[in-house]
Structures are given as structure tokens and as C-alpha cells.
């Protein structure tokens, strides 16, 4: 009797579970496919997601290959003084171009979107955009920064910023959106003073007032920057 009762409950639970899935599937289908336009939009979103996955996988592969190469070069340097000298020279060049991790005193800059409000000159003023990032990074380098990363992406001599609305694309990485943390290693006092200077970053300051965009700066005794994990090719450049 008790066994039959337990079996009955299990059957009811299984039916309920199946109903739950069906209902959820139905609701989702009705929400998302009322027209071809939405289906097309969904297809675009899926493409972006797939491309972002491939992007992350390629960057991980590049980081791993660079680490392997570093190990092989280190092993070769054990056998020859010439190789060792060359390796030291390349290590310094790699550090300056952002290909290796560095750490030291620096600053953290946290940038957050503000409150939606009327647009200014056709720009969505309350969103942190790629130009804000470009301005902050340029200011940091001009104020004693020796290395900078944005949202975990290391800046190199060839780095560029692009994007639209609130999206920030750095080099070959996927788009970032605020909140974004910028890390910089270098002359902490100079960088801090430059970021706190009310005459610096005029556009951001203006939008801080209008849209409550937030720019918070913190001095830190030891900041660690990641290594650059993307392409650094210059196929069109020749040296004399």
C-alpha cells in the first residue's frame, strides 16, 4: 500500500517535471519567435556568442604557446652565453611591449555607467565608452604609467580602442562594458594626482555631473598586470 503510494507520488512528480519543461519551452518559444526579425536577431546574437567563444579559446592558446616558447628559450639559454644575452634583451623588449606580466606600485581606476538621461550631441552620455577608456589610458601613460591594463586586457604599443554606444573593444578582444577596472603600474603619486586633477578628462568630468558617471581612483602598493594574449604582428613593416 505504502509502496503504491510512493510510486504514485513519483509518477506525479515526473509528470510535473515534464510539464515544467514543456511550459518553460513553450513560454520561451512564444517570447522569442514572434517574427522573422526576432529570429534574425537571435541568430546574430548566437553568432556573436560563438565568435566570442572562439576568440577566448584562441587567446588561451596564444598565451600557452608563448609560455612554451619562453620555456624552450630558457632551456636553450642554459647552453649558450650568446643565447642567454639574446634572451635577456628579448625579455626586456617583451616586458616593454606588454607581452609579460609585470607588477609594482600603481593605481586602480574603476569606471561605472551613470544614470540614463537626455543624450548630448547624439552621444549616449551616461555610458562609459571607448573614448573614455582611451583618454584615461593616455593620461596614465602621460603621467608616469609604465604599464596599463583595461578590463584584464594589457595595453601594447600597437593597442587601439573602438566600439559603439557602451561597448569597448580593445585590439582583438571581445567587447567590454562598464563597470571596467583600469590598472596601471608606475609613478603612483603622479598618476593619482593627474586623475584627480579637475581640469583633466574634461568630457568624463562633465558627464560625472550630468549623468553621475563614476570614476574612482585608488592608489595601491602593488598592482599586477596580465600579459598581452593577442596578436602582435606587423606584416607590412620592414626595417632597413
Amino acid at each position, binding site marked *: 500500500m505504502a509502496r503504491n503510494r510512493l510510486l504514485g507520488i513519483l509518477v506525479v512528480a515526473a509528470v510535473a517535471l515534464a510539464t515544467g519543461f514543456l511550459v518553460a519551452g513553450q513560454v520561451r518559444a512564444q517570447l522569442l519567435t514572434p517574427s522573422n526579425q526576432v529570429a534574425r536577431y537571435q541568430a*546574430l*546574437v548566437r553568432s556573436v556568442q560563438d565568435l566570442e567563444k572562439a576568440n577566448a579559446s584562441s587567446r588561451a592558446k596564444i598565451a600557452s604557446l608563448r609560455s612554451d616558447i619562453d620555456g624552450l628559450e630558457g632551456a636553450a639559454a642554459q647552453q649558450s652565453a650568446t643565447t642567454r644575452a639574446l634572451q635577456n634583451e628579448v625579455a626586456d623588449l617583451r616586458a616593454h611591449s606588454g607581452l609579460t606580466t609585470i607588477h609594482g606600485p600603481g593605481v586602480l581606476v574603476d569606471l561605472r555607467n551613470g544614470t540614463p538621461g537626455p543624450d548630448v550631441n547624439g552621444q549616449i552620455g551616461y555610458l562609459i565608452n571607448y573614448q573614455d577608456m*582611451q583618454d584615461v589610458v593616455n593620461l596614465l601613460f602621460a603621467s608616469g604609467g609604465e604599464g596599463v591594463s583595461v578590463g584584464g586586457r594589457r595595453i601594447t604599443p600597437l593597442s*587601439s580602442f573602438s566600439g559603439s554606444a557602451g561597448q569597448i573593444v580593445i585590439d582583438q578582444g571581445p567587447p567590454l562594458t562598464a563597470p571596467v577596472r583600469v590598472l596601471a603600474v608606475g609613478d603612483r603619486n603622479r598618476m593619482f594626482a593627474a586623475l584627480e586633477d579637475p581640469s583633466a578628462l574634461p568630457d568624463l568630468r562633465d558627464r560625472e555631473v550630468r549623468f553621475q558617471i563614476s570614476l574612482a581612483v585608488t592608489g595601491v602598493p602593488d598592482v599586477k598586470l596580465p600579459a598581452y594574449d593577442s596578436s602582435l604582428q606587423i606584416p607590412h613593416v620592414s626595417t632597413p
Partner: protein
Amino acid sequence: MSAPPRRVSSPRRRPKRALEIWLIALLVALVATVQIRSQAEVERSLVGTDTTTLAFLIDDLHRANDALSAEAADLAQRKAALQTGGSSAADQELSAEANRLRAIEGLVPVHGPGIVVIVDASGLQALDLQDAINNLAAAGAEAIAVNDHRVAMGVAVVQTPNGVSIDGALVLPPWTISVIGDTNRLAEAADLMTQQMHSDRRVRQATYRVEADVVITSIITQRPFVYANP
């Protein structure tokens, strides 16, 4: 004959059964919620982005992924050469890498196909020049110089009372921006940039030309790290 007695649930069983029904209802609601929210979570980052932006994003990601694949293939080749070639192969790889990085960091003169942009204006600020340099870098610039001053990310382009300076040297208009890279992409970016500049009342002239061999002789003096440690 009397009729068989009807089964009547006992009052003590009712709360138990109600509890079971409530548990099942809760389970159904939970499953439905998890199912809908998990899908919403995945798409949340892109919802609200218009289709044009998504299309541009896809184009950018395709180009980025192609560049990443090329880099990975190049690194795999270098790794294979190091694995089989011993220390002479290492010397060769390291020398090539040193030359490449010196060019990337602007420490040596370079040349190659590219474009030359000329902007004559009064009242343009450091931010305007930074924007122009960033636009060209985003279009794949591999080396840039402005009025024979080498520029790369990290070189200070700042506003001074006398005008714009690059790494401490004053750079007065007209600005001649020499760029090496993929001429198609650079020309496309320069075309857009100069068109926008024409609508700026401060700009007297904004032109560009494609050249088969742009020569950049200026270099950046590397500063050793003072604060950064490996």
C-alpha cells in the same frame, strides 16, 4: 443489500496531501524559472544591442579571430623550430623577435606600404590628435609618426599652452601623419576621418594619399622601468 461505503479521505490525511501538491507546484515553478532565467542570463549581455551594432561586432570579431589564428600559427611554428633546432635555432628566433619588437616599440626606423594624412588647422587640441592616432591604430596601423615624431601607445601626446606636444616636443600644424599598414583598411579610415574633419570649422585642409613605401625614420627612446618589476 447495502451500498459499499464510499472512501472518504480522513481529515488527518488532507494536510499531508496538500503539502505534496504544494511541493510539486514549487518544483514545477522552480524548473520553469531556472529554464527561462538561464537563457536570459546568457543573452543579457547582448540584449538591447541593435542589429547594425551586432553586424559590426561580428565583422570585427571575424577579423580579430583571423588575426589570432595567424598569431597562433606563427607561434606554433616558432615553437616547433625551437624544439628541433637547439641553441642556434633559439638564437635565430630570438634575434628575429628582438627586431620585430624594436619595430613595434618604435625603437628603430621602419618603412612599408601605407598612407600619409595631412591636416592643417588652427585650434586643434591634443585630444583631436589622440583621436586621429587611435582611429588609424584601430585600422591596423603598424607604425605612426606625426611631423617626424614617432608615436605609439604610451607616448605622451599632451596639450601645452603653446600647442600639442609629442613626448615633450611641440608639434605645430600642419600635421603630417605617416602611417604604415594595410593600405586598404588605412585608406578607408583616413577617408572617413578627413570627411569628418571637413565639417570642422577649425580645419583648413584634411587630405590623405596612399603610398607604396612610407618611410618613418624617427624613433622613440625607450625608458627603463623604474617602478615595474617582472
